């Protein structure tokens, strides 16, 4: 039987190193299968997250040969097996153990984003009416499985560690899904500019490239949001309108 070697980063928050493991390769195998084989036979305490094994839950994010990937959707047949395959934890987040990282920052960020606030129902029975074409874009964003690979690859988070000033592509898409939701009445533009740091994104589109759901994060989400920020804050009419709204509110 064909075999392959995997260099898996093992360690904790303090230190770690690559360990070599060799395992058999069967037809159709994905990287997560190899990790499971290694757990079963060689390293029972090798830590990794996974759930669905079908690209639907976004748990098994890691860096395979340096690329942010879902391990369950990365087939060994796509990788050059004549040399060792490296598997590392995501780099934008602190390591807990082996391939498991502390992604709790993402949950804290999301909690701070203003929740959905629908308009009054359209019909007396308390329901709404929406056209399919008006929700296509929102549905695209809502495909997100929260694997955080886009956060991992974003240089603002990964290289510059600006987690306190920038919410990252995942949550820009989350804001976009709320802002473009036909029923939503909340306004999230001011914090997008001020506390959520949309200006730090310089649209290199790395996030879009690694998205396993093929969401057009930059083109369909972030750029339109940037335009809204510009309209509200830098267009004199927009600025005046915002000032007036505030005035009326107070």
């Amino acid at each position, binding site marked *: 039987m064909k075999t392959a070697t995997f260099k898996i980063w093992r360690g904790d928050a303090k230190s770690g190193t690559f360990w070599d493991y060799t395992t058999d390769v069967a037809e159709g195998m*994905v990287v997560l299968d190899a990790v499971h084989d290694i757990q079963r036979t060689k390293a029972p*305490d090798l830590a990794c997250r*996974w759930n669905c094994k*079908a690209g639907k*839950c976004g748990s098994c994010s890691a860096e395979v040969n340096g690329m942010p990937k879902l391990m369950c959707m990365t087939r060994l047949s796509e990788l050059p097996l004549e040399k060792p395959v490296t598997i590392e934890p995501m780099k934008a987040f602190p390591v807990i153990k082996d391939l498991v990282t502390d992604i709790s920052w993402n949950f804290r960020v999301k909690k701070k984003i203003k*929740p959905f606030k629908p308009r009054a*129902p359209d019909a007396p029975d*308390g329901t709404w009416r*929406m056209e399919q074409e008006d929700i296509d874009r929102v549905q695209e964003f809502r495909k997100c499985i929260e694997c955080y690979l886009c956060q991992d690859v974003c240089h603002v988070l990964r290289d510059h560690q600006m987690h306190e000033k920038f919410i990252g592509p995942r949550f820009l898409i989350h804001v976009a899904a709320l802002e473009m*939701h036909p029923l939503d009445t909340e306004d999230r533009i001011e914090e997008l500019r001020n506390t959520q740091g949309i200006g730090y994104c310089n649209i290199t589109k790395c996030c879009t490239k690694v998205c396993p759901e093929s969401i057009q994060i930059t083109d369909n989400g972030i750029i339109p949001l940037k335009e809204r920020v510009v309209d509200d804050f830098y267009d004199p009419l927009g600025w005046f309108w915002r000032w007036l709204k505030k005035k009326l509110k107070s």
Partner: protein
Amino acid sequence: MPDYETFEYDVLVIGAGGAGLRAAIEASAAGVRVGLVCKSLLGKAHTVMAEGGIAAALANVDERDNWKVHFADTMRGGQYVNQWRMAELHAKEAPDRVRELEAWGAVFDRTKDGRILQRHFGGHKYPRLAHVGDRTGLEMIRTLQDHGVHQGIDVHMEHTILSLLKDSDRVVGAFGYERERGRFKIFRAKAVVLATGGVGRAYKITSNSWEYTGDGHTLAYEAGAELIDMEFIQFHPTGMVWPPSVMGILVTEGVRGEGGILTNNQGRRFMFDEIPEAYRAHTADSEEEGWRYCQGHKDARRPPELLTRDHVSRCIVREIKEGRGSPHGGVYLDISWIKQKIPNAVEHIKRKLPSMYHQFKQLADIDITEQPMEVGPTTHYIMGGVRVDPDTQMSRLPGLFAAGECAAGINGANRLGGNSLSDLLVFGKRAGEFAAKFAKENQHGSIEREKIDAVAREALAPFESAGRGSENPYVIQKDLQETMQNLVGIVRNEGEMREALEKIGKFKTRAEKAAVTGNREYNPGWHTAIDLKNLLTISEAITHAALERKESRGAQFRDDYPNKDDAFGKVNTIVSKASDGSMHVRLEPLPEMPDYLKQVIEENR
């Protein structure tokens, strides 16, 4: 023993899938303090994998639909051993629960007049499943999660509960560990809701994740609650069969709802060969009528591919056994054929079944718009679970509630597709509501420190077991999965099930010697060793219940009793822990259905 970190809540919810989240939201809305414990990260629970839709008689697509038809469909699908009251509440309340999701931000696919779109599914008379392409579960869990995090609920992610805590008969909390550091924690609560999902990891071929080890079932059983209907395991007819590494991954019934057909290696649509009596009047006579049904023609009847899952699975097994299967031991499921029927079929398939398209393309090199898929049955769901009061979801133990897959009653001998997501919402809400009420009416109980220490010692035993004669927990799990797959699977008989019980007994002995290396921090080997106990308990319960039901009904097919037996149509199997610690099984008569519901069933024959 060290001091354990202790948390105090009015209501503790164990499990954060659809039922757990909905229960936590409801309890929180009642003004009590809520803790939510989940085995994985928030939003990753099994609900996320549900594909086809949420069944609710909204009547947006076919105005003839209403709760009565949904109730009758659910009872017929469950072969009338369902708890009628749960089926009634479910059918009546599901529409409100779906509309509520929309108010919380869910974005369902739309009808032409802008309402929630509904699709056809097996066993449902009318198009009834509210959906978002084939990722409805993701939409549901994300909506509940995003709404839930603003309700003041304390979430403990990556925690596993080891034992429920009791004060005499009452359940007053839970004891468990957190994965990151491996530390034990005490959760004191006035009421506890179990929402831990199913048992699929007891089988080799399954659509379920590692989490599905029957935790809630076992916690309840060990604490003294009853389990009901444990023999009824749903083998979903369409799981992937090739390549080996993806065997068991679900292929949504939505493929058939959109017109997908099942064929054998001779190209024959074998589902037309055998139509059960109870469904003959509802099933299409011709392929053309079946297609017209999928296209929404109201005078047409459903194609036989949309018969109930138990029946479709058995037909597939028959084709494979009789040599008419596909090369990798399945049958063919073809959606690409609709190109003959509609323009833009390729775009249509990609739009309606995007994740199926993606899944087959990426994992099997199959383009489902061009080629048929190969599929076969996969362990998907357990109809059985904790016996609860239909209205309040409380078990026979005061303060212990259960909802969703780990509770039982609504589905009877077979669950209809789409009824699970609505079950989670309807009974998750009820469990949260009544748990909060119970918490308001009761004080915290006292907990016994010695018992907690004993549970902790047992949990740590695998670290002490290393050495000669010790066992690898992964290997025990794999051996158990093969045993259940081969001996207590889709086709069962007494001899094989007795053999299974014997083997389970041996696995228990081996599990006591399960050993792990490394330390307590995020150690999957240790977690696997701990989960073994639950897997063994529910495997035993499934086997005992299946032996007790000496007939074939719904998901249970026995080749030594291949027919339905009216006497067994009037009873449920009940599993409980006897005072000597052994597993006790008995039959109990079904609750008598009131006349107005009997009439509803008659009207919808």
